[in-house]
């Protein structure tokens, strides 16, 4: 087992798949010679050459369009959108073309395509470079949506995404890039659509995603000290959504708290909460509580950004208050 950082895991996952399958190509701004602005694609140009690792102009619509057209005709491209905020500049391609074309054409075309993008805050980049936008893709039928929280999951879910015959939006979290972990040796492939129970507990369920996962785990530690035992679930995959695991846990604990980095309204937790409110009604022992950033754009200053995003303290306090 090698120690890899989350950013190294991205490159390792891509390399593993490019090695295996010659139809896998990587395109994006500065992904080649520069190794990515987050250094998540270092070494790939050297290893696979400029034909398979291509720098693009600042043309997000062209990047996604090129990847889509190629995916329809025999390649399995990985397209990088540097920051998830920039998905907005190519949203028509992502939400109206990539997502819908298979359905519209009565299933004539498949679009095996991965869109990788750096998501989330914590780096004091302000409102246009810090958004947690998993919910944008989740709301669009035809897109699969993944957001790993650990280096091993990065490798395994990236491999699964590349092998999937459908389009996957793969959210990498900026503030996790430096996180290190043991990653299994040899080929590592995980499964889309699977959540993971990271900690067992009987009192309540905490569902978290990406950078909120380590905070949820820390909060669970502290809660245990209060005698409150939380089951912590890393949701990992929003579409497909592993409702069996998540709602199964809620049925066991009777309480659900989501921890979301996104602003308050219509984050991924709203779907999870709504599903629980419909399907676990008889098991619920108390209100479903979403712990989120307030419904504001993210501010830049460290003091403000830290106050906006759910902290371990806020999770603990909210759970304690909520468990009465």
């Amino acid at each position, binding site marked *: 087992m090698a120690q890899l950082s989350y950013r190294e895991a991205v490159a390792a996952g891509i390399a593993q798949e490019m090695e295996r399958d010659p139809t896998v190509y990587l395109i994006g701004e500065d992904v080649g010679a520069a190794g990515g602005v987050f250094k998540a694609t270092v070494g790939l140009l050297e290893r696979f050459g400029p*034909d398979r690792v291509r720098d693009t102009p600042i043309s997000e619509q062209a990047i996604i*369009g090129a*990847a889509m057209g190629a995916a*329809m005709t025999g390649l399995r491209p990985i397209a990088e959108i540097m920051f998830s905020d920039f998905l907005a500049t190519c949203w028509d391609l992502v939400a109206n073309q990539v997502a819908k074309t298979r359905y519209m054409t009565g299933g004539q075309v498949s679009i095996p395509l991965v869109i990788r993008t750096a998501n989330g805050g914590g780096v004091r980049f302000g409102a246009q470079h810090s958004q947690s936008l998993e919910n944008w893709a989740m709301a669009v039928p035809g897109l699969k949506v993944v957001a790993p929280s650990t280096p091993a999951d990065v490798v395994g879910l990236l491999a699964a995404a590349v092998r999937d015959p*459908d389009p996957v939006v793969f959210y990498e979290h900026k503030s996790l890039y430096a996180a290190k972990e043991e990653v299994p040796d040899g080929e590592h492939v995980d499964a889309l659509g699977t959540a993971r129970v990271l900690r067992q507990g009987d009192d309540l369920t905490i569902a978290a995603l990406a950078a909120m996962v380590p905070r949820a785990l820390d909060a669970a530690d502290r809660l245990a000290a209060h005698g409150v035992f939380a089951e912590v679930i890393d949701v990992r995959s929003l579409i497909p959504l592993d409702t069996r695991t998540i709602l199964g846990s809620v049925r066991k604990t009777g309480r659900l708290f989501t921890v979301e980095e996104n602003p308050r309204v219509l984050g991924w937790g709203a779907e999870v909460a709504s599903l629980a409110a419909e399907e676990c009604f008889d098991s619920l022992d108390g209100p479903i509580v979403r712990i989120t950033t307030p419904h504001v754009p993210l501010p830049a200053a460290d003091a403000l950004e830290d106050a906006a995003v759910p902290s371990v303290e806020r999770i603990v306090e909210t759970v304690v208050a909520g468990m009465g």
Partner: protein
Amino acid sequence: MTDTTIHAGAAAAEGLDRDSRLALYRLVAEIRTFEKRAYDLFLQSLVKGTSHLSLGQEAIAAGVALAMRPDDYTFCTYRGHAHTLARGAPMAAVMAELLGREGGLLAGKGGSMHLTSVEHGVMGSYAIVGAHLPIAAGAAWSAQVRGTGQVAVCFFGDGTTNIGAFHEALNLAAVWKLPVVFVCENNLYMEYTPIGAVTAVPNPAADRASAYGLEPIVVDGNDPEAVWAVARAAIARAREGGGPSLIEAKTYRHGGHSRADPGKYRPDEEVREWMTRDPLTTYRARLAAEGVEESTLSGIDADALAKVDLATAQAKDSPPPPVALVERDVWSDGSATWRN
């Protein structure tokens, strides 16, 4: 039309043989007949959604299609009946798609605006202006790296030249030297607004070519042979690694933009003038003048009508699609399942 416009002389010089010329005429006649029928069916409320016809623009679809290899890719807009038929997609299935029937090319899921027949190289019809230009570039990129010699051809209108995706696609295609041919069908109008009122240059496509290091190419889009000639040259260049082309084909739609739009915003004078350049009647007259027997031409006309009649009957016979299709084909496993 500018000085640089290419007319049929050039094509004739390249020696299009009699069979090819008749094939061209046949395509024009079939598309014309199909589109008129589609309009009739729309008026009868059998076409339920919208439809955008290529009446008056048939020569472009015909001329380009004749210059393509069977494994080349076509990317269309919502105004895609002509291009889909020209590549050989089955007419009854195209008609049935317009009517929203199970026998439709897409089993009714796409409708008139999304015709697709991968089997015939028609990689889709896209209804949001501009999006398919980068997608076509992507198919060309794929052909380039797979080394297949395939070329992607992308059709779009004059109005499309003002949207961002046009710019991004043209630049990327030029930088990567992609085998893609962009064909702007300049019919002088967006939906109802004249293109000149909202465009900074007189030739919306050709006057932008230099911004991508490309040659300006303007062709008489109502002359199927002229279109064939420029398309052939551009496709050959693309196939040989010479990179993309941007062709502006000047044309005019005989009717309105879509559905029952009567196109009243167009000056009578302009309409009259363009009707004298009807691609069907002018090409027919030229062929006749150059020695093709009237019986041959009217035979083609009759075949076209018979084919459209048959397609119409078959389409009408097809039942509505089963409602189970609503939850099929979101994913490659055929399902629409987003949770377990």
